[in-house]
């Protein structure tokens, strides 16, 4: 039932083959929208040497530590709109390259390894010499991790000498050490999120081992399995029961509760996966606490991928212009940093609205009363008085009446709507889109106005038409129609064409084109003549 009068139909050519609808960009999923909502910038670009590790502090304001060359750079997570280096950054107590910064669970201390084999512990809040120096490793220490739970005095470190050490930091003494924990460099390690005594290490000997310092040293490691490639990164997933390991081009997810069963293999990277970290998708609804967790992986091939390990699907993929070595995601969900092999740290920041809200709330809780924000009453003397309510946004509960979407019409459609036929033809001709010209011409035929339009064209417009015909009259899509039109135009406007020099040139071009076309047809016929006997023979 016609509830609405007919819409205006724009003209379209019968011979114009519609292109397939353009592939919608993948921004359609809310996930991709989330990842794209980060504002990108380069955090630090003058570092030159590879950024081997990035680590966010577990407590607000979520500082970032980046290990690069012989220093650990600290960036202020509270700075807005982007991270800014802390005044005492970088921490440069290293004699050689610094590796693997790790924050203590309260964010007050930072431990980092180094090329020299020394593990050092720094204060985060101010500059100064290292508080503790842990000496045991003879080779570079690439793995230094604080436990993630409330254990403030221990940490573990693993080095290229295959030694795994568990330290009591305050006394600078090893509690337990496992010489020859692996048969190759230890390059990856992760502390369990559920118990402070459990940690996993990964090594270039293709194996991943899990350690628990509560059990007697003889029974350690309590679990070990082979990844299949040199392990670059190991990460406990938030439940503590799953472990993600990266090595080679693949990321594998293991179930450690069932004794190291391989659950899933992600083969989405083309080159070695260098680092893993946990991210969280923030939903718009505030009811979600942290949002859904995601596993972020970066690789030498320049891609950062977001992996949903509840559904085992890659949900987003992002390309950077360099080889990626490290990745970090702020626990606040507002910042994401990626370190590259050429010393550039790419940063993505979200606007921190919620952060500020939290801040004010916290303040008011302290004060015990909520200060009324002073509201200025607008008076007619104020300029803004006359603009009040202009930028008002609808509430969720409001019923929004959309203004009817304005129909976008091409220029020639607008003119056709006004029955300005010749003008529509001229506009279409000057736009140089063959299909729209053909569409307008067909519409004019349907209105029986084409020949009248042709008769009314002035000399310049006739030149336009002849040039169009020269270009398109032999294209197979429109040939049947345009050849006839060309003939008609030449018949009707013979006098004008003879009297104008430019038009004569156009007609000469047309002539040449027709000669070429005849030549082509002849050649095609020859070819047809050659092929058809062959086809007949082949048919037998």
């Amino acid at each position, binding site marked *: *039932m*016609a*509830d*609405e*009068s*007919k*819409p*205006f*139909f724009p003209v*379209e050519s*019968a*011979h114009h083959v519609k292109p397939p609808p353009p592939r919608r960009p993948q921004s359609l999923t809310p996930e991709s929208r989330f990842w794209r909502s980060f504002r990108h910038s380069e955090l630090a670009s003058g570092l030159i040497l590879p950024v081997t590790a990035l680590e966010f502090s577990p407590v607000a304001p979520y500082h970032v530590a980046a290990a690069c060359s012989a220093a650990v750079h600290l960036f202020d997570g509270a700075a807005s709109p982007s991270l800014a280096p802390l005044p005492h950054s970088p921490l440069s107590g290293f004699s050689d390259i610094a590796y693997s910064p790790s924050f203590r669970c309260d964010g007050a201390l930072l431990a980092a390894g180094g090329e020299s084999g020394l593990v050092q512990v720094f204060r985060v809040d101010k500059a100064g010499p290292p508080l503790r120096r842990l000496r045991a490793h003879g080779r570079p220490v690439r793995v230094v991790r604080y436990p993630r739970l409330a254990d403030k005095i221990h940490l573990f470190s693993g080095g290229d000498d295959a030694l795994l050490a568990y330290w009591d930091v305050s006394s600078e003494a090893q509690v337990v050490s496992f010489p020859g924990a692996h048969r190759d460099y230890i390059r990856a390690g992760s502390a369990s999120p559920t118990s402070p005594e459990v940690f996993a290490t990964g090594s270039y000997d293709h194996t991943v081992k899990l350690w628990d310092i509560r059990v007697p040293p003889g029974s350690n490691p309590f679990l070990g399995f082979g990844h299949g490639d040199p392990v670059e990164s190991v990460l406990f997933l938030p439940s503590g029961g799953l472990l993600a390991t990266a090595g080679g081009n693949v990321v594998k997810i293991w179930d450690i509760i069932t004794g190291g069963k391989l659950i899933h293999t992600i083969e989405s990277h083309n080159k070695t996966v260098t680092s893993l970290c946990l991210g969280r998708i923030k939903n718009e609804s505030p009811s979600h606490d942290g949002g859904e967790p995601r596993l972020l992986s970066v690789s030498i091939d320049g891609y950062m991928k977001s992996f949903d390990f509840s559904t085992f699907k890659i949900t987003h993929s992002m390309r950077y212009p360099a080889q990626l070595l490290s990745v970090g995601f702020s626990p606040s969900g507002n910042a994401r940093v990626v370190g590259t092999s050429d010393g550039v740290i790419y940063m993505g920041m979200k606007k921190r609205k919620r952060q500020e809200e939290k801040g004010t709330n916290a303040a008011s809780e302290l004060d015990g009363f909520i200060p009324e924000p002073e509201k200025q009453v607008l008076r007619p003397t104020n300029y803004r008085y006359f603009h009040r309510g202009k930028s008002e946004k609808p509430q969720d509960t409001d019923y929004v009446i959309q203004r009817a979407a304005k129909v976008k019409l091409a220029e020639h459609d607008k003119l056709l709507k006004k029955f300005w036929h010749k003008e529509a033809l001229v506009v279409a001709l000057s736009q140089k889109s063959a299909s729209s010209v053909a569409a307008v*011409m*067909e*519409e*004019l*035929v*349907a*209105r*029986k*106005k*084409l*020949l009248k339009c042709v008769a009314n064209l002035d000399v310049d417009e006739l030149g336009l038409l002849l040039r169009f015909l020269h270009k398109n009259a032999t294209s197979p899509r429109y040939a049947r*129609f345009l050849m*006839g*039109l060309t003939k*008609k135009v030449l018949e009707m406007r013979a006098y004008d064409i003879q009297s104008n020099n430019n038009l004569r040139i156009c007609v000469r071009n047309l002539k040449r084109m027709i000669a070429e076309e005849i030549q082509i047809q002849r050649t095609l016929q020859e070819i047809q003549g050659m092929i058809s006997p062959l086809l*007949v023979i082949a*048919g*037998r």
Partner: protein
Amino acid sequence: MILGGQSLVSSPPVFSHDGKKLLVCTGFTVSIFSTSTGMKITELEGGHTDRVTSVVVVPVAAPSSKFISYCWTSSLDGTICYWDFSVPELIKKVKVQLPIHSMVIPNISCTPIGSSEKTSNHYAFISVEDLTISADENKAFRGQIQIYNLTKSRRVGGLLAETRKPALLSASKNGEFLGITNKRKLDIWKIPSNDFRIDEIKKIKLHHTKKLTAFAFHPKLRMVAGGDVTGRILIWIGVGRRKFSGDSQATNKKKNLTDEEKPGVRNNDDADSCSTWHWHPSEIKFLSFSSDGAYLYSGGKEGVIVIWQVDTGKKKFKPRLGSPLLYFTESPDPSLSCVTCADNHIHLLKMPTMEITKSIAGIKLPFSYPVGHKGLCTQVAYDETAGLIAVPTEDYCVQFFSLFDNHEVSEVQVCKRNFQPVDDVTLYLALVSVSLDGSLMGTVDVKIPEDGLGGLVSLKFWMRGSRIAEYSLSTVIYEPHSDAEISSLAFRPGHRMAVTSSFGGDFKVWIHNSYIKSNDQLHQRTGWRCQSVGSYKGRPMTAAAFSADGSVLAIAAESVVTLWDPDSNLLVAVIGDTHSPITSLSFIGNSEYLVSLTCGSTPQLAVLSTSKLRLSWSYKLVAEALSSSRDTSQFAVLVLLNSQDKVEGKENGVILLFDVEDPVPVATWMVKKAKGGSVAFIPANPSSDEIKAMDGEKPSLLVYVNGDHEYIIFDPHNMDNRIGKSSRTSQIALEEAGLAGMLGYASIYGDLSNLNPKQDQVPEITFAPSERPWETIFNGSSHVLPPLTKLCSTFLASLIEKKPSMSE
């Protein structure tokens, strides 16, 4: 028996006094529609025996009498009826004797019901046709305007006016003025409002130089707007100040005459000034002032409502209503009005924005095909299972209309073009075909070339969506038979296959297939493509039909019928030889017979037997349409009687129901307006209780759609239901005429009915194609033919095989 498809637009609709109902004249009855839903509520029937021409709703004054709803109706049968349309019930009938073409009751608003207890006299002004004067007389005044006292049911006074044709009366809102358009002038009468006396009626004339077609009174001021055939609108201000004002203003009047110029007023008319507005390019069909008098609505043939601001002359437009406009009616509710379109639609408009809220849709009217169009056009196509007819419309749509429910189901826009009602026809829907189960639709639209340039035939295939009669475009095929026109389009029952035949000498079989494009992802696409092409001796193909089981394809190649296997595209047999091109073909149910219709100089209805490959019997008849029932061996033919006198309303067609075995018709019915009509068998609607009352089996019904798209559905086997007089006499007369017109074999040997039992015994041998391969081997288009060497061997082999069988 179900009647339907009446015109909703024969006369202006009227709103009820609360604006919730709309009274529309539909044929012999008045239908009442709800303005909020657009659906029919009830019908005023039984009062009139001819077309109802006008409705006047009695207004109410007191709120207590809100529920009272009365109306007067007038009809061509010469009666005026008084109804209570809320019940609905006929209360009173007044006989006038002469056909009433228009009626107004101006005083009715002055004395509304409920204001006074005593019934005052109602005076109706009626425009009647004087039947005593025949239409042949050139300058005869056939139209008369009479005054009738409805309360006392008698005529009052003499004639108010005489006109050439019965005029359309129109009264002002307050009932003070009454007027008609009379060629180049407006005749306006002032009616005394309080005490009606016939001798107090005064008349003035307003002159113009063009024929006036519409006019309107301003509701408050003495202002009259008139529209003429060229699209101009004239506004007369101060109409009748001289004559209609009382004697008290005589001095004023003299002053006016002497002092003031009267700009624009012709012939010393009684008006102060006359101004002209011009926007409409063609004839104005209606003019109407808004109830407050601030705006004037005008509409014309080009289908645009123009809203004029009366004070300033500024315009606003409501375009693209898609059809010539006829009437505009304002409701008592200021936010509602309706516009009546010539395509049998009434659109309810939400007032300030002129937005269409609801449409009351009747069946769309047939349109005239442009000259130079070859072949048959589909008048209507049937979706038999759903009981729908598909009507190709002038504005490039296919309207689906439910036969049993008598309302529009949907409308499918076939060509994406805006329809301009004023323009010449340059694009039209030539063919529409719906598959048997209604899941597929095919349309053919033709664009007429301008001076040999840019003509285009496009074939479109549509797939039905989830709901009935909701089709979405599947495939467009431009120029399916290069530039030749398509003569017919048929779907194969039970398959997704269609055939088109063209005058260019070939037919194409189209199949629907879905293929999976696997370049990057699984990407399923569906579409129609040509499976095979066939031709027969280069003759134009004029008609095509599939047999009921879909196993045989019959194509009429001008005068012969060729039978094909649709799957392998092999010519199976050739039957018949008529003198003129065959225009229509149909297989009869599950019998082995085929009916063909031939038009032209030697019209013929021929029944062909596919088992014997020859003509069975034939008549020399001008047949308009043909339909065969699917389960029985009957078929119906709509025959035009070539009567010379073209008096309207006379029966000019006959529906003949034949059984295929017997050339004597089973039944005949005389029908009106047969030109452009069509017949079809449809299965009975299970929901209609009328059918349920009969025996358990589902009988098939016959539907007849006449040239104005009015239709009747009846059971051809039930004698009680027949329309018209199923008079024996006419049937006998036809039989004689039919026998005289028999051709060929039938004319010599009579009918072949006694031969039929034999055929029934051997129904297995249907076409026996292998017996005469030399007929079929060399037929077919060149690309289908195998090389000659292959053909030769089969040809010889067939000859060799033939011998022993012959000797046996």
